[in-house]
């Protein structure tokens, strides 16, 4: 298509391209490996596009600044990694509670603590759901290639505006720093969602009025709607309330915004699942290895298939349960000591075996590990001491 640009770029660069394509015009951040390229490129490009860029004093300030900017009417983003993401948790909850759209990118590195800063991992996947305190909605997207980072960044901004909630883009250091060819679509080629703003008069405007659906339009400060925003539980007009019924309603509505729209938010890739006897559930870089493993296993005559979530939260319960009903086992390779495997176990409702392959030496899970796990050849626990790793799929299970 005319206007398309093919570029050979890094994952973090693709993230910036996606953000700018989606209309991001504000970036606040604090440098941290391995996400810093996003900040550096935003710093160079946003001023040229009339957007704002600021280096804040820490990650706490960064997430607060993007929420402030979003209330000023600009699509806003920050990017970070483990330690910075931990610092952002309170601000993330504030964005959920006040329903301010923004995008937070977490390029996962090895942890806990400072860990191995240049070493990749997938160990923040539960934190993206449960990191901030209190019941709150979570939308988390997990791209697995450089081109997908571009598209999922655009989708992150769109979902953030549609559901008036922060959206987390979660990928590992390998995807973030890998270089691949990316086709940047021409403007208008893929959908970019604009913020829904109020059409009523300022006097009638209530920033949290759920009457017209769970998601109220959001005015910008300075546009004539003088409204109040607070992290306290608030009524439809935005002012604090200690009415227990209103508190319950507000909490349930926050969760319902995402829960009722799961089908619109879910996005999975299914690879050779139609006739699969063993399923692999993998996201991010582990899905790259899983896809390769599926090809190799098929060559050996083993009917393996891959279920790859591009939306990890809300968790794709239905797809997992459906898969569990027709395979003998689901293998979950992830670069941590077992996180999303428990979600797969929960969602499969005992309909099949669920086994994890874990790796935390900052090397990616190799296709051969997945292949060996499934064929039972040369089996060894993928992580020493891990019960999950020791329970391998029985060969006869697959003969079936």
């Amino acid at each position: 298509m005319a206007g398309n640009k093919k570029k050979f770029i890094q994952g973090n660069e693709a993230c910036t391209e996606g953000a700018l394509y989606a209309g991001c015009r504000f970036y606040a951040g604090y440098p941290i490996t391995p996400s810093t390229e996003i900040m550096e490129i935003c710093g160079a490009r946003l001023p040229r596009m009339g957007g704002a860029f600021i280096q804040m004093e820490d990650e706490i300030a960064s997430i607060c600044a993007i929420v402030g900017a979003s209330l000023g009417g600009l699509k806003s983003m920050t990017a970070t990694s483990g330690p910075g993401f931990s610092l952002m948790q309170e601000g993330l909850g504030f964005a959920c509670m006040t329903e301010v759209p923004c995008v937070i990118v977490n390029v996962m590195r090895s942890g806990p603590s400072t860990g191995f800063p240049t070493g990749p991992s997938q160990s923040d996947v539960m934190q993206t759901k449960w990191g901030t305190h209190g019941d709150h909605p979570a939308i988390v997207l997990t791209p697995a290639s450089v081109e997908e980072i571009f598209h999922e960044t655009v989708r992150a901004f769109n979902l953030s505006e549609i559901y008036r909630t922060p959206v987390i883009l979660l990928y590992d250091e390998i995807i973030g720093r890998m270089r691949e060819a990316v086709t940047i679509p021409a403007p208008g080629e893929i959908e970019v969602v604009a913020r829904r703003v109020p059409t009523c008069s300022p006097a009638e405007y209530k920033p949290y009025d759920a009457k017209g659906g769970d998601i109220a339009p959001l005015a910008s400060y300075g546009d004539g709607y003088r409204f109040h925003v607070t992290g306290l539980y608030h009524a439809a007009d935005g002012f604090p309330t200690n009415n227990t019924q209103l508190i319950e309603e507000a909490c349930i509505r926050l969760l319902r915004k995402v829960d009722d729209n799961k089908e619109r938010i879910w996005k999975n890739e299914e690879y050779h699942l139609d006739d699969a006897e063993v399923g692999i559930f993998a996201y991010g870089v582990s899905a790259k290895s899983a896809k390769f493993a599926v090809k190799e296993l098929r060559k050996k005559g083993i009917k393996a298939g891959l279920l790859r979530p591009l939306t990890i939260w809300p968790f794709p319960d239905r797809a997992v349960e459906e898969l569990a009903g027709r395979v003998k086992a689901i293998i979950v390779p992830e670069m941590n000591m077992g996180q999303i495997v428990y979600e797969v176990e929960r969602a499969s409702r005992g309909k099949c075996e669920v086994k994890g392959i874990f790796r935390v030496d900052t090397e990616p899970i190799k296709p051969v590990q997945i292949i060996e796990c499934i064929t039972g050849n040369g089996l060894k626990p993928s992580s020493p001491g891990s019960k999950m790793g020791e329970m391998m799929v029985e060969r006869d299970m697959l003969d079936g």
Partner: protein
Amino acid sequence: MSRPAEEIKPLAKKKKKAPFNYSPYVRGGKLPHIWCPGCGHGIVLKCLLRAIHTTGLLRDDIAMVSGIGCSSRTPGYVDFNTLHTLHGRALAYATGLKLAKPRLNVIVTTGDGDALAIGGNHFIHACRRNMDMTILVYNNAVYGMTSGQASPTTPPGKISTTSRNGSIEPPFDTCSLARAAGATFVARGTAYHFQELEKVIYEAIMHKGTSVVDIIDACPTYYGRFNKYKSPTEMMEKIEKEGTVSVKQVDKLSPEELEGKLLRGILHKSDRPEYCAEYQKLMTKVQAK
């Protein structure tokens, strides 16, 4: 939107000056406020609204941002674009909002704990950047909202629920800190000297750059009770009246008379490039390339 000044009708037609009409600035149905009887925050609010009126700024063009604490409840009562945020983080939100929409006049209401303890890092960096905003630190030397713990401005020896035997920590001087960090307008006022305070807040809002006003006021409920002050008025007299000296009188007083007193008035004013203006210049430069 009409200017608030035009909405205000004189209440009396006598020769006597009409009383100030606060109603255009106060949100209907949101009063009474949560502040205790004898608390100075109401006086600060009065001075703030009168100062804003004098600036002639439109309500639509004012954003008031706060953190957590008694002082941070101010935005809920006033009819501006208002944002009540996390403990300590008001300045970070304000920074994002101001840079995103520089035409907004940003006023931050915060307290000594909010601005100088949990928010201390944001405070010094806001001063350093010199983004055009007004920071009002309601300084009552105690955490009032959580019932009277020591704050970074609690004087040595004073009693709080977390310094029951007297504080052993040296306090911050808000103004020295702000000046050292680079704020281009630094002033101090008290709730007792309310006319002075109104003028100082007016000057702070009009100043182009980061303005900090340290506002000494009293928390009779906790600080006063723990430290054996008999009444809110005694607190105001001892802490705000006798504990401070106007910068205009400094030359007339001996070092002994100035001992232990805080200075009131505009303590520092300088001219340094303002952040949003600099960012605008940077954009113009890179876009011309």
